[in-house]
């Protein structure tokens, strides 16, 4: 798993972002975390993965670049919207 330089973090994870990122880098279990990653298909904008899925052995050999993390799927969708507006305004 790779993390982008500018990582978007959902509001629910701001208090414990260091712990969450450290555990994700070490491959340890983190509960209720959703990752926004680069699109796996050129027609898509972003992909939203549950962290449980990224823990599967397949993703060890095919790592994914994480652009943002959120505490729930709804928050991840909100994060995607935020990233798109940021991109349109030239922020990312």
């Amino acid at each position, binding site marked *: 798993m790779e993390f982008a330089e500018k990582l978007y973090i959902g509001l629910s994870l701001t208090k*414990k972002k260091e712990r969450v990122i450290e555990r994700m880098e070490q491959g*340890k279990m*983190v*509960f*209720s975390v959703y990752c926004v990653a680069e699109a796996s298909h050129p027609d898509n904008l972003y992909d939203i993965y549950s962290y449980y899925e990224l823990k599967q052995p397949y993703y060890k050999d095919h790592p994914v670049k994480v652009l943002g993390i959120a505490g729930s799927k709804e928050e991840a969708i909100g994060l995607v919207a935020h990233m798109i507006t940021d991109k349109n305004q030239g922020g990312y």
Partner: protein
Amino acid sequence: MLSIILLCLKVIGILLLIILGVALFLILSVLFVPVRYRLAGCFEETKKAEALVSWGGIVFRARAAYEYEKDLRYTVRIFGVTILTSEEKITILQRILGWKERREEKRRRKIYEKYQRNLSKFSEEEWDNDAWANLPEGYEPKEWSSWEDHMDEYRTGYPWDTVDGESQEDFPEEKESVKERVQGLLENWKEKRQEKREQKEWEKAIESEKTVEEPQEKWYNNLEEKMEDLSDKYERLERFYYENQSQYAVRKMFGLIKKTICYILPTSWRGRLRYGFSDPALTGQSYGLLCATGVALSPRCRIEAEFEEAVLEGRIKVRGRIRVFFFVRMAVLIFFDRRLKAVYRKGKDVLGGI
């Protein structure tokens, strides 16, 4: 001179040999002489069970028997001498262990005899009054005529009480000013207490305005952290379990446990079962099943199916023997296996980390 020294050495050598021989004999007998056990059960007109454990024939023998609606009976004998028994006779062990009680009983009897001798000197009335027996010598209770005498015993130290022998009526003005002072202090204290109370309530109100979700969020975060720690521990254990060495250790231990169970199981058994259901068809079906599985055809077990009445009777006898050498051998195999030792050390580290 030399011959005397040699003679002494010879005697010492022979003695040592005898001691060694006896020790070796004892060790070998403990290792190789089996512990034999016999179990018997009967479920017919009488319902009873018996167990017998013996070692070396007469050296150690323990027997227990239970019959339905009767007490459990047991005896333990060493070299034929009864050590423990459920019967009412006193065993040697009880005699040896009961010396403290007998000594205590003797002491109490002596004190009672002394008391009896003293009692005969004084009248009963005097001995009945226990209070006099407990008071120290020369003590006389004080008799108070009025409550004022009683009050003199306890001085409160208030300014309007007597101080150094002066009565309160001598200085009425002083008494008034002191009273006013004290009342003033009391009122001040009451005001301060009220202020503190109001401040506390104000702070409480501010605290309660904070979101209700905070304690819930804290509890949820704590729970998450605990679950994450648990999952870390589980992953560590899982990784340790699936290593090659650990798998070897698990297979070896399972093999040893299986061998041990097969060893401990009885060497011979014999049984008889007579059964029948109220429905003869069911009896026939069950008997057919037992024959098909080979249980009813076994020479050790005699099964009789009763088609005319519902009945359940049976008896079983089981015998076996266990040698200590088997367990010693198991222990040696485990202890001298390097791979098992390595797994044990690593397991300790992993569990210690958990």
